[in-house]
């Protein structure tokens, strides 16, 4: 029974409607969480003893960096499923996630720069953490441009999936880079093995900002996947019927 339903939602025509219903909820939740997260970031979390007010960049920097890695893994899983089972929708989901992932990778890079300048005295160093994060950004750009360069959607999906899957190796490298190599970058803000070393309000602010970024990403990716579905299925009858309704 559940199998039948899954197949039903894997059809682009059904998913188009479902995604449309889910977008407003995620968008509203994201706006609310961003408001709460920013309030905590600036008005509740105390001043840092070592870094003064400059540390507040953490509330956008760390969630963006997490998102850029999470989105890449999710994108690679979708691309891999699309490659293995030839499901059209998963390849479209991978394509819908890539620009937002690239955006968060870019945000992580430049907020890091704006944090590094006052704290380390430099905008950029070629160390393991920063370089591997830059490579992640280039992997996104590579994925997007490769898909855009190939006209045949099936071939472009396969080529994109290849780059996405090969690039996944970079994600653990980013995550563990601060342990494996000497670096200016501080260690992980939150560890799975140790109790958090930061104030509870700082932690809460960071987590709420992270969930806000997640809900933002879900809403935006669903919005984008609907456009991709329309573009690719434009010859299908359900799309013409839908366009009749819009008119």
């Amino acid at each position, binding site marked *: 029974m559940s199998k039948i339903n899954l197949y039903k939602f894997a059809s682009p025509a059904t998913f188009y409607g479902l995604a449309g219903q889910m977008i407003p909820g995620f968008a509203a939740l994201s706006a609310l969480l961003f408001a709460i997260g920013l309030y905590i970031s*600036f008005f509740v979390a105390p001043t840092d003893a070592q870094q003064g007010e400059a540390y507040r*960049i953490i509330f956008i920097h760390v969630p963006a960096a997490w998102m850029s890695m999470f989105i890449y893994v999710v994108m690679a899983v979708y691309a891999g499923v699309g490659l293995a089972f030839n499901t059209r929708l998963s390849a479209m989901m991978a394509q819908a996630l890539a620009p937002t992932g690239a955006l968060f990778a870019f945000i992580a890079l430049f907020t890091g720069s704006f944090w590094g300048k006052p704290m380390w005295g430099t905008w950029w160093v070629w160390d393991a953490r920063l370089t591997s994060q830059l490579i992640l950004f280039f992997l996104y750009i590579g994925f997007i441009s490769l898909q855009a360069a190939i006209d045949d959607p099936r071939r472009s999906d396969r080529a994109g999936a290849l780059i996405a899957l090969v690039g996944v190796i970079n994600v653990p490298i980013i995550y563990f880079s601060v342990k494996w190599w000497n670096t200016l970058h501080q260690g992980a803000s939150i560890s799975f093995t140790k109790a958090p070393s930061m104030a509870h309000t700082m932690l809460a602010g960071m987590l709420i900002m992270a969930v806000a970024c997640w809900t933002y990403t879900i809403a935006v990716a669903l919005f984008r996947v609907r456009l991709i579905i329309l573009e690719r299925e434009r010859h299908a009858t359900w799309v013409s019927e839908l366009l009749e309704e819009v008119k």
Partner: protein
Amino acid sequence: MNWGSFSAFLHMGGYAFYVWSSFGLSFLLLALELLLLSGRRRTLLKRLGQIQRLNASRGSK
């Protein structure tokens, strides 16, 4: 509450440039993504609508 006054809030303990650039540019980019997406949707619907009208007028002849 961390800030004695609104100007102290804007001043960010001397790190105003770095903190406000980071947050400002980040949210500007997110807003830009939303703007580009809604523009893409408008053009797409317009184009698909044109194709459909074209097909309909061909079919009726």
